[in-house]
C-alpha cells in the first residue's frame, strides 16, 4: 500500500502574497476576483496579525461574498479602521499555480514524486465559479512518501519536519499522511478532527508540544475507513449539489456513506460518489501526476579560474553556449519537447551578481543553432561582466514541439507550408532577440472608441517563466481580427501622432468644419471634409475625452485627421492618411 502525504496550504493566495510582501502582515488582505457581472467578490482573505479580538464574534467572511458585504462584516467586528487599512488585490491564479509548482520542486527533498494536489470541488462555498480557474485553484501538494519516511525517522517525524520547515519559510501548512491521495487530502483538511480519534500507537515522547494545534496527523495503514468515518462529505471533494442531496437523505459523513451499498449509490447518485469512495479506500489506483515542466534541464560550465571577458575570442562564447544548449536539449528531445524560454546566467567574478539574460521564444524550438543565435543576438546587446567565472543555461519553460513530417522533395509542395511557418517563427524570434521583446508586436483591435486605445500591441515573444497569452506554440489571439471591429466603421489614418498636436484652424461656423489650417509652416486649404465623428468616452480613465473628428482633404491632395476638443474648442491634428 502506498503512503501519500498531503501538504495543505490554507488560503494559499494570501499566504503567497504575505511571503512575497511581508509588510502586508499587519493588514487584512483580500484577494478578490470579478464575477460575471463585474462585481468584486472575495476569493480568499486573511489577517495575519489581527488585533486582540474584541468581544464580538470572529467575522464570518465567506469566499464568494462581495467585497462590500465583506467590509460590512469586518467593520462591526474590528471597527471601521480595519476597512480603511484593508489591502485588496486581484486574484492571480496563474501566479499562484506557478508559485505552488515552485514549492512542489522544493518539496522534492521529502519524496521523489511530488504533485500539485486537486482543488476543492467546484462550487464548494461558492469559491470556484469559473471553470478554467478551477484547474489552477489548487492549494495543496501531494507526495508519494512510500518508503522514504524512515529517512526522516518515521512518518510522524516526516510530517512534523514538513510542517515546521514550511513554517520557517513563513507558510502555514497542514499535513496528513494516509494510504490514498483522497484519504490524505481529506485528513489534511480536518487534521484536528482526525487527530482526536487517532490512537497514539507510538506515543510521541519528544516534540509533542509542537503539535498542540494539530497541524499534522498520520493515519495508520489500512485504517482510513475507521478513523476518517466522521468527516463530512465535502472531504471527499464531492460537488456541493451532490453533497447536499446526500445530506437531505440523512447521509452526512463518510462513515454513513460507507454503510450504504455501493450498487444502490451508483443507481441513485452521481457516479462521482462511488468513484471517490473507491479512491478513498484504495480500490482504484489514483496516480500522482507531477506538474508539467517539473524536470526542466539546466547545464552549466565553470571555468577553472575566472577569465577576463575581453580575452574571449568571438567563437568562444557561441561554442560554449552551443555545448550547454545541446546538453539542455537532450533530455527534452526524448519527450518531444522544445525550449520555449531559457535563461542564461553569466557568473561574474567574486562577489558580483550574475548577469542574467532571458530569452523567450515565439514558438518552442529544438534547434541548438537557432537558440545559440538568439542568445548571441541578445549577448551582443548586453554588457558582459568584467570577469567570467562560469556560464549557466537553464530552461525556464518547455513545450511540446509540433510534430512535423519530413519532406523528401521540398519544393513548393503543400507540405512545405508548415516549414514556412516555422521560418516565420524563427524570424520573429531573431527580431525580438535583437530589437527587444516590445519591438515585435502583433496589433489587436480593441472595442474602444478612443482612437489611441483602439488597439493593443501584443508582443509575440513569451515572457520567461510565464506562458505567453497565446499558449505554447499557438497563434496570437485566434479571433484577434473579429474580436472587435473598429468603432465607427469609417476609415482610420495610416499614421497617428503619439500625442495630438495643436493647430491653428479657421472655421467659419463656431461648431462647423475647418476651412483652412496651418501645419508645418504651410497653410492648407480644406477642399473636402467629412465629419464630425463625435467621440465621448474614457471617463473612467480620467477626464472625459470629448472630440469631434474630421477627415480633411486639402487642395494638394493630402489627407489629415483633425479633431476639435469640445472642452476648450481647440483644434488638434491627430493623424495623417500617409
Amino acid at each position, binding site marked *: 500500500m502506498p503512503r501519500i502525504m498531503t501538504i495543505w496550504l490554507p488560503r494559499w493566495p494570501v499566504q503567497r502574497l504575505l511571503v512575497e510582501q511581508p509588510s502586508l502582515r499587519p493588514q487584512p488582505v483580500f484577494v478578490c476576483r470579478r464575477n460575471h457581472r463585474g462585481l468584486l467578490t472575495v476569493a480568499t482573505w486573511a489577517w495575519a496579525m489581527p488585533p486582540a479580538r474584541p468581544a464580538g464574534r470572529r467575522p464570518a467572511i465567506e469566499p464568494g461574498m462581495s467585497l462590500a458585504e465583506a467590509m460590512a462584516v469586518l467593520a462591526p467586528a474590528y471597527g471601521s479602521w480595519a476597512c480603511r487599512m484593508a489591502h485588496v488585490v486581484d486574484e492571480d491564479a496563474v501566479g499562484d499555480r506557478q508559485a505552488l509548482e515552485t514549492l512542489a520542486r522544493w518539496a522534492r527533498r521529502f519524496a521523489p514524486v511530488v504533485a500539485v494536489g486537486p482543488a476543492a470541488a467546484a462550487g464548494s462555498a461558492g469559491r470556484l465559479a469559473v471553470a478554467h480557474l478551477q484547474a489552477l485553484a489548487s492549494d495543496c501538494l501531494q507526495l508519494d512518501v512510500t518508503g522514504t519516511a524512515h529517512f526522516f525517522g518515521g512518518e510522524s517525524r516526516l510530517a512534523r519536519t514538513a510542517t515546521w520547515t514550511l513554517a520557517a519559510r513563513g507558510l502555514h501548512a497542514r499535513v496528513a499522511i494516509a494510504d490514498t491521495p483522497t484519504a490524505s487530502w481529506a485528513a489534511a483538511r480536518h487534521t484536528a478532527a482526525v487527530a482526536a480519534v487517532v490512537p497514539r500507537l507510538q506515543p510521541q515522547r519528544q516534540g509533542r508540544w509542537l503539535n498542540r494545534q494539530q497541524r499534522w496527523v498520520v493515519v495508520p495503514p489500512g485504517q482510513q475507513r475507521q478513523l476518517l468515518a466522521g468527516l463530512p462529505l465535502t472531504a471527499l471533494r464531492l460537488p456541493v449539489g451532490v453533497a447536499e442531496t446526500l445530506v437531505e437523505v440523512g447521509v452526512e459523513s463518510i462513515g454513513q456513506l460507507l454503510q450504504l451499498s455501493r450498487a444502490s449509490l451508483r443507481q441513485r447518485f452521481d457516479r462521482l460518489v462511488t468513484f471517490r469512495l473507491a479512491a478513498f479506500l484504495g480500490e482504484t489506483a489514483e496516480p500522482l501526476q507531477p506538474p508539467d515542466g517539473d524536470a526542466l534541464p539546466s547545464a552549466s560550465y565553470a571555468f577553472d579560474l575566472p577569465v577576463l571577458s575581453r580575452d574571449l575570442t568571438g567563437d568562444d562564447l557561441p561554442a560554449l553556449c552551443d555545448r550547454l544548449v545541446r546538453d539542455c536539449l537532450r533530455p527534452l528531445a526524448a519527450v518531444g519537447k522544445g525550449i520555449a524560454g531559457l535563461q542564461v546566467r553569466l557568473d561574474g567574478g567574486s562577489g558580483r551578481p550574475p548577469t542574467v539574460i532571458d530569452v523567450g521564444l515565439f514558438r518552442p524550438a529544438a534547434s541548438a543553432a537557432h537558440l545559440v543565435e538568439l542568445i548571441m543576438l541578445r549577448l551582443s546587446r548586453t554588457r558582459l561582466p568584467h570577469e567570467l567565472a562560469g556560464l549557466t543555461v537553464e530552461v525556464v519553460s518547455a513545450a511540446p514541439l509540433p510534430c512535423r513530417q519530413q519532406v523528401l522533395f521540398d519544393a*513548393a509542395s*503543400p507540405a*512545405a507550408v508548415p516549414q*514556412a*511557418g516555422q521560418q*516565420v517563427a524563427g*524570424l520573429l524570434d*531573431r527580431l525580438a532577440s*535583437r*530589437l527587444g521583446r*516590445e*519591438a*515585435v*508586436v*502583433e*496589433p489587436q*483591435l480593441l472595442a474602444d*472608441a478612443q*482612437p489611441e486605445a*483602439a*488597439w493593443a*500591441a501584443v508582443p*509575440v515573444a513569451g515572457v520567461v517563466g510565464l506562458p505567453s497569452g497565446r499558449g505554447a506554440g499557438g*497563434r496570437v489571439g*485566434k*479571433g484577434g*481580427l*473579429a474580436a472587435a*471591429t*473598429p468603432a*465607427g*466603421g*469609417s*476609415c*482610420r*489614418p*495610416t*499614421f*497617428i501622432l*503619439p500625442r495630438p498636436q495643436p493647430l491653428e484652424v479657421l472655421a467659419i461656423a463656431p461648431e462647423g468644419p475647418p476651412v483652412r489650417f496651418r501645419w*508645418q509652416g504651410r497653410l492648407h486649404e480644406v*477642399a*473636402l471634409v*467629412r*465629419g*464630425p*465623428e*463625435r*467621440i*465621448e*468616452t474614457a471617463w473612467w480613465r480620467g477626464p472625459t475625452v470629448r472630440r469631434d473628428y474630421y*477627415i480633411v482633404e*486639402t487642395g494638394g*491632395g*493630402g*489627407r489629415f485627421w483633425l479633431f476639435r476638443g469640445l472642452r476648450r474648442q481647440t483644434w488638434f491634428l491627430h*493623424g*495623417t*492618411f*500617409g
Partner: protein
Amino acid sequence: MRQLDGVRSLERLCRQATGRQAFPGQGATLEQTVVSSGLPSLDRLLPCGGIRLGSLIEWLEPTTKSGIETAAGAAAFALAVAVRLQAADSLPAGRPILVIDRGGRFYPPAVLPWLAAADSTACHDKAVVGRRQRRGNSPAASRRNDRLEKAGTRADRQLYVIRPDSEADEIWAIDQALRCPGVAAVVGWPQRVAATPLRRWQLAAKASGVVGLFVRPAVTRQQPTWAEVRVQVQPTGHVQAAAGGRPMTGRPTGRASWIDVRAYRLVRVGGGWESATAVAEPAADCLLDLTCGRECLRPAAASLQPDWSRSTNWKEPVCHAS
C-alpha cells in the same frame, strides 16, 4: 553609376554564357512567378502585368518627405498592395505581412479591417452587412454576417509590426524579414538607404521570393535603385475632379461614401536602373477604397451625377458615447 552598370552587364553576360547567375540568389521558378497585385490599374501599369515574386517595389511620395510628414497616401497604397498579395489565391496561405515602422507612428486600425475584408467577395458586401446589422437582422443579412465572421476569424491573416529604434536596426530588420520565405510582404518607410543595403535586400528577396514594398521620399528619384519598379504615387485631389469639379455626394458602393475613396495617379518612373533614361512614363489612375483596401472600379456615369437629395451627406454625425 558606371560601376553599377558594369555589374549589371556582367551579370547579364554571365547568364548568357553559363545559364547561371553571377551572384547567388537563384530561384528560377520564383523569378518567373508573377502575381496580380489585386489592383487592376496597377497591374496594367506594371511591366509584367503584375508583381514578380522576389522583387522590390518603391513607392515614391510626391514630396520630399515621407511617412507621417506627408499625407499623400503612399503608405496606404503600399499596405493595400501587401494585403492583396497576402490574400492571393495562387500563393500558400498563412504568410504574415511585416510592417517595419521605425518612428512608431503606424496606426494598425487603418489596415486590420482590410485583412478581415480580404476574403469577402466584394467590398460593398461588408458595407451592406454593416448597414443591415444596425437596422435589424434579416435572415439574409445574418447569413452574410456569418460569412463575414468566418472571413474575419481566419487566423492566417497575420500582420506584425516591427519597431526598430535606429536606422541600422531598421536595415537589419528589413534584411532579415526579406530573407524569410514564409513572409508575404515586407512594408517599410526607410528614410535614407544606401545602395549597398538595397542591393542586399534585393538579393535576399530574390532568394526567398518575398516582395518588398518601400515608401520613399521623392528625392530618391534621382538616385539609382535596385528595385524592379518605381511607382510615383500622387493623390489627385478629391474624387470630384473626375466628375467635372462638381461636389459629388453619391455613394460609390454600399456604405462607403466618396470620402472613403481616394484617387491616385500612379506614374511608373523607371526602376531597375532605368531612371537615367527619360522615356515616356506610363501612368494610370486608381481609386482606392480606404475602408477595405481594394480598388474601387470607376463608377458608371450615372452614379457620378450629384445626388442633391443627400447634399448634407458630409455633415452626417457619428457619435460614440460610452
